[in-house]
């Protein structure tokens, strides 16, 4: 076979195997090595809800997709240049993501009769059955080579088999000319207490690398030059970590200690885990008995003067509904993070969706508007969380931060910001009695926010609660007081629009079609936009981070385009919301509710259909 070295600006690799095969780790290490090499990177972990589904079956297949490039990478990529499949089921589940020119690396040891049968193939020739004959298929006996490589390692057979992902990673490092140092450092840190495992993994990695170089079966190797990233110090970050850090940053800037009351739920759990690590920054976390206690402990902490947070996903968000109304009527600062997943009910827990928008907008009893901010990329979760905290504390109200499983688990290189570039957060704390008597719900004129009086402050004793109250804090069921207070609370949320940035447009600010998006679809919409622009189409994009209230220039911005298409991973929740607020426009829709991100192709086609 003729070996080619391909100089390319973008490659998509997907690692797939059983959920116990270590594919998430393999993918992450590959992504990290690429980021350290200087590529732009975007990742997409796609795994089942079961921790160890029956081995060798389709339901147990776990995947991790990485897009690396020398240019701007905004999505994990639609289709793959390379697919690694550790067993027949992984191949079957992922073959449809292969580009026609793709290389497919298979562990031939698993392609025995039993494995093929378990994966549900009808014949004993999976390649033919999946019509993959024209692809570059590399059958490598990964399991037996790993065993051979480690036969003198002294490791037990189970541990040896578990190392086969490192063999695969070594092969990929050869194909893509990746340096191995970063992975060595990772192994040394991870298995610090077990030097024999460090050595074994290093050896397997190296043997995989050498094997790939020796067999001549690898048809192409790739050179992907470093991306022309802005100067600075970079790190890789995933969305949940960025969310946690953004919240910690808001705590630091406000001087209010962070308190997070939460209950573990996929895919939000790692925010709680990350916050739990950072007691050194005076962050307290309380893993509660349930979702309701999560938000209620946070409300108690907010009343006592902490920067309070609760983190969850759709079903947990439903459980927090009543308490969110309590936070709203008591006018306490609180950030509720909802890392959206496929619903309704338990739905598809590990898959991504944007289907909680209606719940965030409308899902409470009574007149209960709550501000909503959405993150648009893994690293943007940092800013989105920071500003959710800033608005919550300065405006004395709960703020919902919507992210998505796709963002929470996905990662990208991030130019590390400096905290001096972030604004101060000045909550309206009152530290002494200024006028007698103290009115807990008296508002300031700028933000319409009330004052934050911490228990422990002399002379400011006051009561808050779920019952309607007048500005002086007295319980009231006077019809006119109620109507006035409903109006004041709504006006306070609406007032936030004066403090958020104006909505901007990517591309020309007038033209044929405006793509409208929000949340985690940004990378795909942006990439689709660039493709359409390259083809000379008059298309622009506006992507909303501030969902409620909307930026004040929204209608003006929409009016400059002949057509508007709202693209989102639900059946049209944002489009319907826009219809209620800005009825003068016609909104086309591009929707997908499959628990999967858009592909760029889908968006390009949807836009072309209305051009």
């Amino acid at each position, binding site marked *: 076979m003729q070996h080619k070295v391909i100089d390319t600006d973008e490659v998509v690799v997907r690692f797939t195997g059983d959920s116990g095969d270590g594919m998430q780790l393999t993918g992450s290490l590959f992504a990290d090595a690429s980021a350290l090499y200087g590529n732009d990177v975007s990742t997409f972990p796609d795994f089942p809800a079961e921790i160890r589904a029956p081995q060798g079956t389709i339901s147990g297949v776990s995947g991790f997709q990485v897009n690396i490039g020398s240019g701007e990478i905004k999505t994990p990529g639609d289709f793959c240049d390379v697919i690694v499949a550790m067993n027949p089921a992984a191949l079957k589940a992922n073959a449809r993501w292969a580009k026609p020119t793709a290389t497919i690396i298979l562990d031939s040891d698993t392609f025995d009769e039993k494995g093929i049968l378990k994966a549900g193939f009808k014949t004993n020739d999976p390649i033919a059955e999946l019509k993959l004959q024209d692809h570059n298929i590399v059958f490598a006996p990964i399991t037996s080579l790993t065993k051979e490589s480690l036969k003198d390692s002294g490791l037990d057979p189970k541990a040896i088999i578990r190392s086969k992902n490192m063999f695969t990673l070594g092969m990929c490092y050869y194909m893509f000319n990746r340096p191995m140092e970063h992975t060595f450092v990772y192994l040394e840190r991870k298995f610090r207490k077990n030097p024999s495992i460090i050595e074994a993994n290093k050896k397997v990695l190296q043997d995989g690398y050498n094997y790939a170089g020796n067999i001549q079966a690898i048809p192409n190797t790739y050179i992907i030059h470093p991306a022309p990233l802005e100067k600075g110090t970079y790190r890789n970050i995933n969305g949940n970590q960025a969310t946690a850090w953004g919240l910690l940053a808001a705590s630091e800037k406000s001087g209010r200690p962070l308190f997070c009351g939460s209950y573990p739920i996929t895919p939000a759990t790692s925010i709680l885990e990350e916050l739990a690590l950072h007691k050194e920054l005076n962050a307290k976390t309380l893993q*509660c008995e349930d979702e309701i*206690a999560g938000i*209620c402990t946070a409300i*108690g902490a907010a009343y006592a*003067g902490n920067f309070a947070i609760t983190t969850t996903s759709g079903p947990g968000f439903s459980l927090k509904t009543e308490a969110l109304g309590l936070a709203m009527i008591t006018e306490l600062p609180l950030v509720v993070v909802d890392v959206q997943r496929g619903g309704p009910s338990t739905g598809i827990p590990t898959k991504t969706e944007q289907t909680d928008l209606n719940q965030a907008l409308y899902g409470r009893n009574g007149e209960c508007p709550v501000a909503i901010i959405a993150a648009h990329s893994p690293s943007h979760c940092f800013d989105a969380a920071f500003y959710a905290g800033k608005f919550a504390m300065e405006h004395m109200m709960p703020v919902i931060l919507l992210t998505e499983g796709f963002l929470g688990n996905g990662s990208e290189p991030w130019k590390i910001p400096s905290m001096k570039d972030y604004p101060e957060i000045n909550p309206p704390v009152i530290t002494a009695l200024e006028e007698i008597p103290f009115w807990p719900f008296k508002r300031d004129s700028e933000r319409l926010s009330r004052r934050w009086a911490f*228990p422990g402050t002399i002379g400011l*004793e*006051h*009561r808050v609660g779920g019952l309607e109250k007048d500005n002086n804090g007295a319980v009231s069921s006077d019809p006119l007081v109620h109507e006035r207070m409903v109006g004041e609370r709504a006006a306070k949320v609406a007032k936030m629009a004066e403090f958020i940035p104006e909505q901007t447009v990517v591309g020309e600010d007038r033209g044929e079609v405006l793509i409208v998006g929000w949340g985690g679809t940004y990378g795909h919409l942006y990439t689709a936009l660039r493709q359409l622009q390259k083809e000379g189409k008059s298309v622009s994009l506006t992507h909303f981070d501030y969902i409620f209230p909307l930026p004040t220039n929204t209608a003006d911005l929409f009016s400059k385009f002949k057509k508007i298409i709202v693209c989102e991973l639900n059946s049209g929740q944002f489009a319907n919301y826009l219809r209620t607020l800005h009825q003068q426009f016609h909104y086309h829709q591009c929707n997908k509710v499959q628990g999967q991100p858009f592909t760029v192709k889908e968006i390009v086609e949807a836009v072309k259909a209305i051009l």
Partner: protein
Amino acid sequence: MIYTPQDFKSNQEVKWCPGCGDHAILASIQRAMPEICESLNYTKERFVFVSGIGCSSRFPYYMNTYGFHGIHGRASAIATGVKVANPTLTVWQITGDGDALAIGGNHFIHAIRRNIDINIILFNNQIYGLTKGQYSPTSQLGKVTKTSPYGTVEHPFNPGAIVLGARGTFFARSIDVELKLTQEIMVESAKHDGTAVTEVLVNCVIFNDKTHAAVTDKENRADRTIILRHGEPMIFGKDRDRGLILYGRKLKAVKIGEGGITEKDILIHDAKEENPGLHSMLIDMKYPELPIALGVIRAVNDKTYDDNVRDQVIDVMEHSQIHSMDELLHSGATWEVK
């Protein structure tokens, strides 16, 4: 600072029904406050009263302290948040049998399990009063109410048993009409580090009148209840001539001077015994076989949740290399783009 009960009264009109037992508990707690402040060196602004929903949960509005009237069942969670956020506060949760044991049962047991330093006062009137007379988790089996027109077919909870089941460190019981005893228990509760649960048997004059009457009527109270005090013999009765002994594996009420029983045979109350065996038997005592136990039944020392959290934070802060966001942002694997 010297306080009087008046300092703890808010300017809000108390809206409980005339004759409701809640009035008496409010008075007892307001009377206990100056003593608590004096003995623990507390000032008024450190008090936070948190409640859920129900008649008793209106309580915070009547106290001139910080207060949070929460939502149904969630007072334990809100109180937990307040205490963890600021452990220097003294946090009091006012709740009822429906609020704490039905809708809020989960938060109630977990607060106790964590041993968070809050004081929970459980007003037990064995009925849903605010919704006008439905049975509660403590209503007696067979109780006829609006939602059990043929009598309930449910077994009631004994709140003290739940506290012990969750390895609670403090449990006390009082009666609304025993103002002095309630006041005394409130001081003990405040002194206790950890979750302190006090059950107060309350009369609902409208929907469950005289539910506790068999033991609370003035005439019979001394014979049908026993007030336990740590280190004192378990003696009760109008004439102080009756006592409790262990008979086989059970408690038995005996008359001193009869059948060779002398005062020496009577059990001495040890509230600080960690083993909950005897506390459990005392909590379970029912009239007419045995007197109902009142007073501080259990008060054992253990680490509190809020202390553990504070210690961990201090320890991690001391040992961490990271002291600011900028340091956190640059921690771990990073690389330079030049």
